[in-house]
């Protein structure tokens, strides 16, 4: 018992250490370029963790999540530009709107399985992009079509979620990431988490055990699209410029899925691990080969994905967790006898 406690203590203290390092990093790392890269890394880890609620736990493969990013970004931006409403409030509005859209999309598509579901969500994502690209005014709301929307950097500060330095963005997205990780941790251990996993793996068996599979998936979809939209607002406020091609792109939807599949879908650490591995590849290929070989990162992702699917179909989190546990057990060996 006592030994178990120390093992647990070690785990908690290593988590704390990671926390201290990530929160303290901007004090040491002053370069805005590196902070920018880290912010995007956290953003993708956050997006993938949100995606994971549906794509991981519920066992389906949604490939249209960029649309929810778009809904979040456009909602808060339009509300801010046209009505002067704080993006924090716009963030919530966008989230709720995305959750409603998520449920509407989920109602017909969750009846489909495998590739059909994935295709339906791609169609939905692309549909939204094409619509936004071709609509200048949606009722009273100015979407500005393919030209996108620019947020003038006036009244900078926390209330308007706008900053001149990178550090505040870094802390906001880090807190969002920690929150979403905590949420997925609690969900994975809750009734809903068990029901989602069961319904994803063997829907018939799950139903016979009292699981309303369709309803569980809709709840997960609503949460996932809500959380994804929050990241959309963050992204809009971070870049202060949104246009349909960059924010509702298929590339973004795919990159989220790549990160999840390579890191390990359905696990809590998988999305973070995936982002940690893939984001640098993506950034450096853009920095060094952006002009000569655009899209190189997607080729690399594809290759890595094939290899991972062959050798570690449950994602890279699995072997790494095993190594971690082995290390943990070596550091604090099995208690000799029970007290």
């Amino acid at each position: 018992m006592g030994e178990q406690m120390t093992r647990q203590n070690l785990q908690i203290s290593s988590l704390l250490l990671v926390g201290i390092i990530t929160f303290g990093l901007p004090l040491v790392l002053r370069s805005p370029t590196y902070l920018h890269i880290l912010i995007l890394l956290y953003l993708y880890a956050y997006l993938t963790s949100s995606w994971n609620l549906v794509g991981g736990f519920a066992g389906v493969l949604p490939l249209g999540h960029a649309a929810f990013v778009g809904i979040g970004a456009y909602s808060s931006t339009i509300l801010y530009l046209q009505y002067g409403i704080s993006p924090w409030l716009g963030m919530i509005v966008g989230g709720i709107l995305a959750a409603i859209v998520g449920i509407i999309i989920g109602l017909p598509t969750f009846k489909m399985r495998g590739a059909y579901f994935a295709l339906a969500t791609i169609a939905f994502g692309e549909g939204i992009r094409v619509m936004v690209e071709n609509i200048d005014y949606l009722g009273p709301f100015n979407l500005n079509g393919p030209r996108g929307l620019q947020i003038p950097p006036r009244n900078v500060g926390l209330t308007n979620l706008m900053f001149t330095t990178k550090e505040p963005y870094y802390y906001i997205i880090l807190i969002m990431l920690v929150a979403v990780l905590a949420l997925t941790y609690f969900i994975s251990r809750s009734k809903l988490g068990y029901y989602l996993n069961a319904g994803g793996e063997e829907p018939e068996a799950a139903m016979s055990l009292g699981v309303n599979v369709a309803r569980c998936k809709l709840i997960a979809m609503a949460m996932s699209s809500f959380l994804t939209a929050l990241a959309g607002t963050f992204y809009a406020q971070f870049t202060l410029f949104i246009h349909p091609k960059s924010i509702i792109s298929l590339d973004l939807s795919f990159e989220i899925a790549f990160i999840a599949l390579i890191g390990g879908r359905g696990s809590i650490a998988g999305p973070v691990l995936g982002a940690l591995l893939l984001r640098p590849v993506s950034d450096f290929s853009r920095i060094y080969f952006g002009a000569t070989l655009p899209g190189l990162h997607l080729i690399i992702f594809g290759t890595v994905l094939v290899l991972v699917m062959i050798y570690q179909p449950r994602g890279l989190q699995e072997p790494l967790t095993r190594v971690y546990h082995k290390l943990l057990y070596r550091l604090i060996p099995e208690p000799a006898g029970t007290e």
Partner: protein
Amino acid sequence: MKILELKNLTKDFGGLRAVDNLNLSIDDGQILGLIGPNGAGKSTAFNCIAGVYPPSEGDIYFNGEKINNEKPWNLCKKGLARTFQIVKPFSSKSVLYNVMVGSFANKDKRADAEKKSLEILKYLHLEDKKDIRAGNLTIADRKRLEIARALATEPRLLLLDEVMAGLRPTEVDEMVEIIKNLRESGITVFVIEHIMRAIMALSDWIVVIHFGQKIAEGIPETVAADENVIKAYLGEEYGVS
């Protein structure tokens, strides 16, 4: 008190009538065996009762309440649980996880569900295997896991669809013991089975169907001696033991 009643249950698949005007009822606390040749419509009847398909005609009553178009998850909450002929474990999850999914039907807290699940695993002698991934179990243990999961939902009526197929004789004997114990604990059991030795030893009442129709019913001895049953299913060599 009848816990389950089928009245003129009929199920058509296109032009094929899988279950034809089936009438039967189970008393509370009974073990009822349903037998018949392959393709006789046994599993279809089960699927109608469990809410997988709505019946084409006829009515199903559970506890006096008509349940014709009830969804499987609601039936489960009412106290009707089932196993699948082709086992459907959540393969990538542990045995304990599998059973906990069932326990959550009546428990909301994880700790309660876990406690309940461990009790059931102990009862079915599966507690040593609680951390094994369900996909790695032997067929006998998978069948047992099906029962464990169903029991975790605290059923009043348990539908067992060929839980003994593919088991070794000693394992069949163990399973017979398990099912008898279930009845002792107050659960009504409805079994489909092909292993005559087991069904004869278990059932209080046996119903035989052939091409979807009931051809005989009665206590095991009567059914085993019935001419139609011997012709359609048991074969001439089957002797009453």
